[in-house]
């Protein structure tokens, strides 16, 4: 019993900042700045949400922040997230399946290269890429950001999918192969249906990691494209806590829903498929 109370108080500590954020977004300016903080008994006030959605019209703010900018920021994040995750998945499925099934000479070297790609500080990719993108006109485009996020998520996708394919019995491949099916057909018709749960998990995790990525989105997106973390860092300069809180609350709800859907495989995703839950 003591153990349970202790465990729940630990969970409470970790959930508290999220709780504090969400309640802050519903506070008026007096309750927001009161110390000791009003955690439960405050007047509920939706004005922050109204301002976040229709920001420039009401406050006559610099139009470079864009009208309805929260909606378009969420759209930016969704386009980049879904675009890059789809591309990641297509590349990852073929590579992951091949690495899972075949024994080839440079297999270990390839896996080490994938892991090394995961290690790269993102700034060391973003700076050279900035110049390359500048030359081929990919700066500030969805395609440019989707490509770099695809690369960032590839190590996760390939290794995680490999671990899911490893769980599909090799007997299935062998039997189908004896019956004369080609490798590509075995993958499409037999293996993908067997591993579709794992593929869905990989897809959602890729969206989440694209949603949270910061430094590449900052450098590749400029004026037109701002994903949610970038917008958050810009909002730092606008001294309005309730709007900051409302903005962040709305922007983390989609990821919360996504993660609770794949919670069982989350640890496996975080460890690139090595630790299973």
């Amino acid at each position, binding site marked *: 019993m003591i*153990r349970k109370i202790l*465990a729940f108080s*630990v*969970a409470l500590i*970790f*959930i508290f*900042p*999220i709780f*504090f*954020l969400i309640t802050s977004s519903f506070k008026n300016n007096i309750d*927001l700045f009161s110390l000791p903080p009003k955690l439960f008994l405050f007047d509920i006030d939706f004005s922050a949400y109204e301002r976040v959605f229709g920001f420039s019209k009401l406050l006559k703010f610099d139009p470079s922040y864009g009208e309805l900018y929260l909606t378009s920021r969420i759209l930016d994040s969704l386009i980049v997230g879904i675009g890059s995750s789809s591309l990641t998945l297509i*590349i*990852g499925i*073929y*590579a992951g399946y091949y690495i899972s099934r*075949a024994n080839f000479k440079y297999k270990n070297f390839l896996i*080490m*290269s*994938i*892991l090394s*790609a995961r*290690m*790269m*500080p*993102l*700034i*060391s990719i973003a*700076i*050279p890429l900035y110049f*390359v993108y500048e030359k081929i006109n990919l700066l500030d485009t969805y395609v440019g950001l989707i490509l*770099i996020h695809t690369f960032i998520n*590839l190590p996760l996708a*390939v290794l995680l999918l490999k671990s899911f394919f490893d769980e599909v019995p090799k007997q299935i491949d062998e039997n189908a192969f004896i019956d004369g099916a*080609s490798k*590509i*057909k075995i993958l499409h018709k037999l293996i993908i249906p067997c591993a579709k749960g794992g593929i869905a998990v990989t897809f959602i995790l890729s969206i989440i990691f694209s949603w*949270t990525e*910061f*430094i590449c989105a900052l450098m590749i997106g400029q004026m037109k494209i701002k994903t*949610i*973390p*970038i917008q*958050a*860092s810009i*909002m*730092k300069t606008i001294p309005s806590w309730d709007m*900051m809180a409302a903005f*962040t609350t709305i*922007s*983390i709800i989609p*990821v919360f829903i996504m993660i*609770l859907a794949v*919670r069982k495989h*989350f*640890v496996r995703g*975080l*460890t690139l498929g*090595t*630790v299973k*839950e």
Partner: protein
Amino acid sequence: MAAQKSYSLPSFMNSDSSLPWLLPLITMLIVFAIIPFFYNIYLSFHEFVPAKRALLFVGWDNWIRLFTDGVFWGSLKVSLYYTFMCLLIQLVLGMGIALLIDSDDPGFGIIRSILTLTLVIPPAIAGMIFLIMEDANYGLIPWLLKSVGLIGPEDTILADPTLALWGVMIVDIWQWTPFMVLILVAGLRSLPSEPFESAVIDGARPFQVFRRLTLPMLHKVIAVAILIRGIDLWRMVDYVFVLTSGGPGTATYTLSLYSWQRFTFVQWGYGATISLFSLIVILIVGNAFIHFAKVKW
């Protein structure tokens, strides 16, 4: 036969060659890892000269500047301190919490779900949450610390050269300790129960069981957790960007942030040199760690 015909693919995809399967992956690795790596090397020997509005060859200047630059050494120290301290605290705290919630009781399942939530918040947004909570005048954390007397009434967290880094680290510890917890719990739950039962019968004390049985059996899981957390700690930039922008002064510059900041000051070559340094360090250390800790994929 007709059904099979409709599914025909280019013949090279049916071959036994590994190329078509791995080609997209290898292309991505070359375009986004190998090319940037060599471009970084190229940039580190060049610098933008404002007078001539061009990127000119400067020889070893950037590298000489790197090793004589006090701010660089400061940011290297910050990166090292940040990585090691956060890793240590998160590992110890994480192990403690993992042992606490390692149970079949359904209530503990809810706790594990709660702990997942912090991990998917974009770090920049987590920084924003703590920016509000650590505000010098109206923030919750300074108010708490002041009321118990840990800091003086005039002290601030994020504007104080010695406290600012801890103000950043607290966000990392809050957000990523659950990462350790979840991985270690997954490891603990996968352990066989027989050795532990026989140890209890033999009269081993809980601490002995932990040291002689749990830790060695968790070796692989702990190594993976350290590796992945270490990589992300080393390249952390989001929190300092949002919370302190490297300040006060240069007290919270990490290597990545300093590199980015030099880049925005149009010192492209020098910025690339710093990022290249940070890349080479993590590639050597990371791969050595994988080798010596015998982590397998």
